[in-house]
C-alpha cells in the first residue's frame, strides 16, 4: 500500500480509454493472433443518424387526420412504369431485398417467397442464381444480375418478373463478396459452376461493362432478350446517390434501388461494412433530387433499403420521396435469425443472441444462414413464411397509422413537410426542419 506519510493514497477508479475500448482491443488481439481481417455478416453496427432522428408532426388545425380504421389509406405501388410492358404491381411498398441461395439455405429462401407472396409483395434472388423453390413460392420474383453471374442463364432471366442489375450494395460500396468454402455444398457449387468446398470470390465489377454508357447498352441487351416485358432496376450503394441516380436514369433504368450502409451482407470485411458508404437517412434526399431534376420522380421508382425495421421507417422513407423500401436483415430476424431461444448455442459459438453475425461460417443455430443439412432442418419454411407475412402486415399497418394521422389517403402522399428532425445532423441529411424551428442546415436562403 502506497502511503505519503501516514496517509494512504486512494486508488482512482479504473478508467477505460474511449479510443482503445474493449471492443477495439479485442479487434487488435484477434488481428495479431490470426493475421486475417475480420469477416462478418450484417450491416453497419456503429451508431449512425437514422430515421429514429425524425418525427412526424401529425394532424393539427391546418391538417385534419383520417379516421383510424374507417377511412382508407392505400398502400399499393407499381414499379417499372417507364418502359416495361408488364410493370410490377405490389400491394404494399415493402419488398424483400436480394439475398443469395448459398448465403441462405434453400428453405429460408422458400420462406421469403412464401411470406412476400402472402403479403402481396416481391422477393429477390441473390448472388447464386434462381432456385426452383424460390421461383415456385414467389408470385413476384426479381432476378438479380450480378458481377459474378453465378447461375446466370437466359431461361431464368425470362422467368423473372423484374431484373435488378446490381452495381453495388450499402454494406460494401465498391466491394465484391466471398462465400467461404464451408458453405459451398454440392448444390451451391453446381449452381455456381465451381468445385465444392473452395472459397467463392464474387467480383466487384461487372465482367462485360464499365461506366454509364456501357450500362445503357447492357440494359438494351437485357430488354431485347426479355422482349421489353419486365422492369429493369439498377441497384446502387448509397455512395454518390445524386450522381448514381442520375446516371442510372440516363442509362434507361425503370427503378433505382438505393442501399444505405446499414444494409446487410452475407460476408464482408468488418472494416468495409463500418467505414465505407453513407447512412440510409443521408442518401434518400439527394436521390429524390436527382429524380426531380430530371422530371422522373414517380416515373422511375426509388426503392430505399438499409436498416428499415418498422412501419415508422417505411413512412419516413416514403415521406422523403421513396416509392418503396426493401428489407433484408429485418426479414431474417422475422424468420428467426438471432432468436434468444437458441441462446445456449450462440454462447457456444462465443456470441449471444442478437449479436451473432458470423453468417459466413455456416453454423447458424437458427438454420437460416447455413447449408448444413442438420441445422437447416430446424427451420420450417411454412412457419417462417407465416412469420414474415405477419411482420410485413404489421409494418404496413404501422405505416398506415402514421399516414392517417397525417391526413393521407395513400402512403405516397406523405411528404417532407410532415417531418421534423431531432438533431441538426438529421435535419441536414433529411432536409427537414430541426424540431421547434423552421431551419435546417443548407436550407435555401440561409447562409449556413
Amino acid at each position, binding site marked *: 500500500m502506497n502511503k505519503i506519510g501516514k496517509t494512504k493514497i486512494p486508488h482512482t477508479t479504473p478508467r477505460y480509454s474511449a479510443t482503445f475500448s474493449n471492443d477495439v482491443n479485442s479487434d487488435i488481439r484477434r488481428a495479431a493472433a*490470426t*493475421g*486475417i481481417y475480420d469477416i462478418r455478416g450484417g450491416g453497419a453496427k456503429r451508431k449512425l443518424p437514422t430515421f429514429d432522428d425524425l418525427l412526424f408532426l401529425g394532424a393539427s388545425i391546418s391538417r385534419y387526420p383520417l379516421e383510424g380504421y374507417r377511412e382508407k389509406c392505400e398502400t399499393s405501388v407499381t414499379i417499372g412504369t417507364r418502359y416495361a410492358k408488364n410493370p410490377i404491381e405490389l400491394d404494399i411498398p415493402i419488398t424483400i431485398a436480394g439475398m443469395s441461395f448459398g448465403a441462405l439455405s434453400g428453405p429460408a429462401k422458400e420462406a421469403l417467397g412464401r411470406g412476400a407472396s402472402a403479403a402481396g409483395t416481391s422477393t429477390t434472388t441473390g448472388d447464386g442464381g434462381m432456385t426452383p423453390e424460390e421461383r415456385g413460392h414467389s408470385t413476384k420474383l426479381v432476378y438479380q444480375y450480378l458481377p*459474378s*453471374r453465378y447461375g*446466370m*442463364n*437466359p*431461361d431464368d*432471366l*425470362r422467368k423473372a418478373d423484374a431484373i435488378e442489375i446490381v452495381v453495388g450494395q450499402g454494406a460494401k460500396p465498391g466491394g465484391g463478396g*466471398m462465400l*467461404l*468454402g464451408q458453405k459451398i455444398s454440392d448444390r451451391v457449387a453446381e449452381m*455456381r*459452376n*465451381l*468445385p465444392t468446398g*473452395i*472459397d467463392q*470470390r464474387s*467480383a466487384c465489377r461487372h*465482367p*462485360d*461493362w464499365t461506366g454509364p454508357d*456501357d450500362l445503357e*447498352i*447492357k440494359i*438494351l*441487351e437485357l430488354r*431485347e*432478350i*426479355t*422482349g*421489353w416485358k419486365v422492369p429493369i432496376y439498377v441497384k446502387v450503394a448509397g455512395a454518390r446517390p445524386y450522381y448514381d441516380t442520375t446516371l442510372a436514369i440516363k442509362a434507361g433504368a425503370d427503378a433505382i434501388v438505393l442501399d444505405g450502409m446499414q444494409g446487410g451482407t452475407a460476408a464482408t470485411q468488418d472494416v468495409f461494412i463500418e467505414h465505407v458508404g453513407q447512412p440510409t437517412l443521408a442518401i434518400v434526399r439527394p436521390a429524390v433530387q436527382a429524380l426531380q431534376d430530371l422530371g422522373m420522380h414517380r416515373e422511375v421508382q426509388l426503392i430505399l433499403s438499409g436498416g428499415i425495421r418498422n412501419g415508422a421507417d417505411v413512412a419516413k422513407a416514403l415521406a422523403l420521396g421513396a416509392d418503396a423500401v426493401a428489407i433484408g436483415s429485418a426479414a431474417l430476424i422475422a424468420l428467426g435469425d438471432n432468436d434468444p431461444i437458441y441462446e445456449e448455442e450462440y454462447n457456444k459459438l462465443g456470441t449471444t443472441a442478437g449479436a451473432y453475425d458470423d453468417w459466413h461460417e455456416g453454423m447458424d443455430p437458427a438454420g437460416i444462414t447455413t447449408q448444413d443439412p442438420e441445422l437447416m432442418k430446424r427451420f420450417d419454411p411454412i412457419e417462417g413464411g407465416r412469420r414474415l407475412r405477419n411482420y410485413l402486415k404489421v409494418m404496413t399497418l404501422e405505416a398506415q397509422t402514421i399516414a392517417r394521422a397525417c391526413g393521407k389517403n395513400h402512403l405516397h402522399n406523405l411528404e417532407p413537410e410532415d417531418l421534423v428532425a431531432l438533431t441538426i445532423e438529421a435535419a441536414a441529411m433529411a432536409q427537414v426542419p430541426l424540431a421547434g424551428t423552421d431551419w435546417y442546415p443548407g436550407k435555401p436562403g440561409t447562409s449556413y
Partner: protein
Amino acid sequence: MLEFDLQENGLRKLNSALHDQKENSNQTVWKITNPKGSHAIAVGIDAPIEVNIEGSTGYYCGGMNKLANINVKGSVGPGVAENMMSGKVVIDGDASQYAGATGHGGLLVIKGNASSRCGISMKGINIVVHGNIGHMSAFMAQSGTLVVCGDAGDALGDSLYEAKLFVRGNVKSLGADCEKKEMRPEHLELLEQLLSEAECDAKPEEFTRYGSARKLYNFNIDNSDAY
C-alpha cells in the same frame, strides 16, 4: 433464306422475329444486312437456327445464345456471345473486350484477334482465337477451354479456377495463381477436337497448357501478396 435489313426494320423487330422462330419452320437460315455496328444483335436466341450477319456489330452480339449458329462477316464490339449457353458463334474479323464473358457452353470462334479480358469469368464455354488475345484474359475463369493460336497479353488467367488455357505463341505474363501445366493425351485430344471445329490448322502439339495452381482456393494470409 430470310433476309432482314437492320437499318430499315430496326433492332426490336429483328430480335423479336428471331425469338418467334417457329420450331417446325423450314426457314431456319437468316441473313442480316446493314448491321452497321448496332448493339445487341441476335441476342437471347433459343432455337437451332443459323444467323449470318453481313458486316460488323457493336456490343453483345449473340449474347446469351442458345442453340443457334451465328456467323459475323466482320468484326464485333465488346462482349460478343456473353453468357452463351450453347450453339456456335463465329467471327471472321476481330473481337473487342470481354469476348465470351461468363459463357456457360457452346463454341466461340474468333478468326482474327481478341482484345483484353477474353473469356473473363467463363463458366463452361469453349473459345478458340485464331490470332492473339489481350491482357487479363480468362480472369477468374471457372470452367471451359480457351485456345489461343497466337500470343496472350499480360496477366493471363489471373485468379483462375478450373478453366483450361492453351496458348500456341508467347504469353507476356501469367496472372496470380496461373501456372504452366503438363500436356497430357486427353488435352491433346480436346485441342484437336476444338481446333477442327474452329477450322484452324494449328497442331495440338504446338500449344502449351496453363491452369490454376489452386493456391488461392481457400483464403490464407500467407498468400495475401497475390490478392
